[in-house]
């Protein structure tokens, strides 16, 4: 599913039970990160649970490739949304995207606990910083 499909799907569901279930399912589809890649420098600071994130350019050194994992299913689902947003974009395209705003549009930020919301923000900030470093 691309990000628009995810967005439509989440918006179509009523009630937080269904939405969180869907988010969790998105997480399930994300492959687990090999233990070897769960390195300290891949850990995103500022998240309550563990979040590991790697961001790189593809073999042509063109488009973004992100892989990520978390020890909680729901955060992993949130990561799936973030990855769907950024994966495969050109760096200059990624600069135009504001995933946090997207989360806000879906009403997710308002419903997440503030520390969880700050975690999402920390992940997105980290992506932005790395994308900027590519240019």
């Amino acid at each position, binding site marked *: 599913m691309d990000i628009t499909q995810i967005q439509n799907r989440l918006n179509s569901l009523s009630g937080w*039970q269904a939405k*969180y279930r869907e988010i*969790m399912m998105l997480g399930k589809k994300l492959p687990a990160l090999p233990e070897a890649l769960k390195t300290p420098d891949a850990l995103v600071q500022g998240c309550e649970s563990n979040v590991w994130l790697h961001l790189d350019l593809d073999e042509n050194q063109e488009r973004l490739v992100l892989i990520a994992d978390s*020890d909680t*299913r729901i955060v992993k689902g949130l990561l799936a949304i973030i990855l769907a947003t950024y994966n495969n974009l050109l760096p200059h395209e990624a600069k135009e995207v504001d995933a946090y705003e997207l989360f806000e549009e879906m009403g997710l930020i308002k419903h997440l606990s503030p520390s969880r919301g700050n975690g999402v923000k920390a992940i997105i900030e980290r992506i932005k910083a790395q994308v900027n470093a590519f240019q």
Partner: protein
Amino acid sequence: MIEQLRKDFPLLHTQVDEQTLCYFDSAATTQKPQSVIDAVNKFYQQENANVHRGAHTLSAAATTQYEAVRTKLADFLNVAAKEVVWTKGATDSLNLIAYGLSDKLNKEDIILISPLEHHANIVPWQQAAHRTGARIETLPISPQGILDLEASKQLIKTLQPKILSVCHASNALGNIHDVASLIDIASRCGTITVVDGAQSFLHLRPDLTALGCDFFVFSAHKALGPTGVGGLFGRYELLNDMPVYQTGGEMIERVSFSGTTFRDAPGKFEPGTPNISGVIGFGAALDYLNAIDDSALAHYEQCLYRYLVDALSDIGGVKIWGDIKQNIGVVSFTYKDEHHFDIATFLNTYGVAVRSGHHCTQPLMEHLSLSGTVRVSLAFYNSYQDIDTFIDALKDTIDMLEE
């Protein structure tokens, strides 16, 4: 009885996310009866004034009310009013005590605590140890998280600690500790004993004279009272002997640039304008507690707790941590390897408010090799219906996780 009491708590009847709320986070903070809310309200509407040294009627009345709550609390705990100090809460109280006792510590000395302590009963002692060179040692607990009472008594005798500070009941697991018997041994070793009563105040209503401790701390917000207020009891001689902690107005006898002298306890530990409305609201909470039959209530809480433990035990994969025999009504559990946060988040979508995480007891979690638990903490205002709702929601959650 309980149906009647539940009506006194307006928050229990609010809807959260269009769900009826099942509040299981009373160990973090309790809900407040209407009478407490009304007392705070009335204070601001009709009685608001600063306390002490005011010649006008409002100020005199506020002072009288404020001091009357000190006496009421002292009666509740079976100690003398002058042995009660108002603070910001249990954390503030423990900091005051750990600072105040530092003078008595040197690098030969041992501060003995349990591995079950809340961070508030660990870190201030680490700071005191850091300042004085004293050493922190911990009491023995089982892999399950239960204090080994006999081995603990033995350890006290062996170590002869200068200070023993333990919780009366664990906030993470709910375990009740037989602090009286620990204090009995410790006192004979000349140990100063501190009891963290943050969790026991409401559920066990301790008689401090019977417990025999030297110090006791609590927070009002965990016992039906307002936020931002708590207190400590200190045996007068020891209490008055401690150096001043925070300084400022009210706590002084005389200030001059050539030298300042301080009042006696409890005054010397209460600088500045106190949380007047908080104390007065807490007075209403004590009135509320005094008006209900506490043995009936304790019995009900225990029945509720049994019902919860039994229902949870029937669910395969659920593991309950801690002591389920002596417990104030807190269930800390894990389900297989699932993350506590995922479970709590799903439960919340059913209106079930639990807490998840390390509960400010990281050393305990490390001991149990857990990143955290889901904690269901009960109070007398919970109903069997609440527990049924929780169990149904948990089963749904598990189904979803297992999908």
